[in-house]
């Protein structure tokens, strides 16, 4: 069964460029991408407002917040950056720190690569430029094994999520402390609920669920233990390396 899938993979996706009409799931376009991103939009509205308020309070201007959200576009890294700038940390140290916070995107980018072999390099560069924890999570929930991602669909997810982030962080910075209790409504919990739902969907959609459940338990455990000794973003890298290996090995044993 595994060999078939592999053969399929090669037959469907030769190294030559194909038109981007193919997509996974079939026929999903830009508007479907926007629809798939609704949970991300809800979460980014809440976190983005909170970030804008925090940044403004730390002495970052509205325009600086907007530019940061436009060209850096990274939730946790922006919180870290604001803290470091406010603390007067030298520019070079801030940039190195942000790189270390964001280097985990290597894993997301690599994990998406098998699904975009039919796209052109510039299309893949555009898709990668707006990869975040959340857009990767939403997109990967729609990518089956050996399938393909449509460029329009992926950019729909990415663009609307990025636009939401720019708008909500800027509004947060403009309103500043005028927003006192943005958490009252519970929207800040949207992203945690989204991770929970996507994790369950990933597990039930795998051919065998035992390796996936074990990998998830290991991933959660490693992430928490590692967070005690390294920054949270590095704990995610450690958890991913260990848990993906556990899952793959267990699945091989079951086959």
């Amino acid at each position: 069964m595994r060999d078939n899938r592999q053969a399929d993979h090669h037959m469907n996706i030769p190294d030559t460029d194909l038109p981007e009409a193919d997509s996974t799931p079939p026929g999903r376009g830009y508007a479907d991408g926007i629809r798939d991103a609704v949970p991300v939009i809800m979460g980014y509205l809440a976190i983005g407002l909170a970030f804008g308020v925090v940044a403004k309070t730390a002495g970052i201007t509205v325009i600086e917040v907007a530019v940061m959200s436009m060209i850096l576009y990274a939730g946790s890294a922006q919180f870290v950056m604001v803290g470091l700038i406010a603390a007067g940390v030298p520019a070079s140290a801030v940039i190195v720190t942000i790189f270390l916070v964001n280097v985990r995107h290597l894993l997301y980018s690599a994990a998406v690569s098998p699904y975009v072999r039919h796209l052109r390099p510039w299309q893949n560069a555009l898709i990668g430029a707006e990869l975040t924890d959340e857009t990767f999570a939403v997109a990967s929930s729609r990518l089956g094994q050996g399938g393909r991602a449509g460029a329009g669909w992926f950019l729909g997810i990415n663009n609307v999520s990025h636009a939401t982030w720019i708008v909500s962080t800027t509004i947060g910075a403009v309103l500043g402390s005028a927003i006192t209790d943005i958490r009252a409504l519970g929207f800040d919990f949207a992203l945690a609920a989204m991770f929970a739902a996507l994790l369950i969907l990933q597990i039930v959609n795998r051919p065998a669920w035992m390796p996936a459940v074990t990998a998830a338990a290991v991933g959660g455990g490693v992430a928490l233990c590692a967070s005690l000794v390294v920054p949270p973003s590095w704990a995610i890298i450690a958890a991913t390396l260990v848990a993906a290996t556990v899952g793959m090995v267990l699945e091989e044993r079951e086959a």
Partner: protein
Amino acid sequence: MIRTEVFLIILGAAIVTLIPRIVPLVLLSRITLPERVVRWLEFVPVAVLSALLAQAVVMPEGSPSWPPENLAMIAIIPVLLIAVRTKSLIKTVAGGVVVMALLRWVMG
């Protein structure tokens, strides 16, 4: 107003963030990865999601905390049940937001 130094920090940070986002996607999509590597990569979403979820629930403010301060740890129980039962992303997220709002109102 934008300060030159802040702009340069943002620009530098943006460049070092774009590299890990773009390079693997562009390069690895050009080559045929070994089958085992592909199967490893297929487990990355489960691994990443479990790590992100664990951190979001146990350390929502950045360091580990417990109820009643940490309501995410309570809210996650009904949310997981909704996810398993409905297998619907949007229902789970909507349910999670409502549960959290109710919890804050009750614990208020």
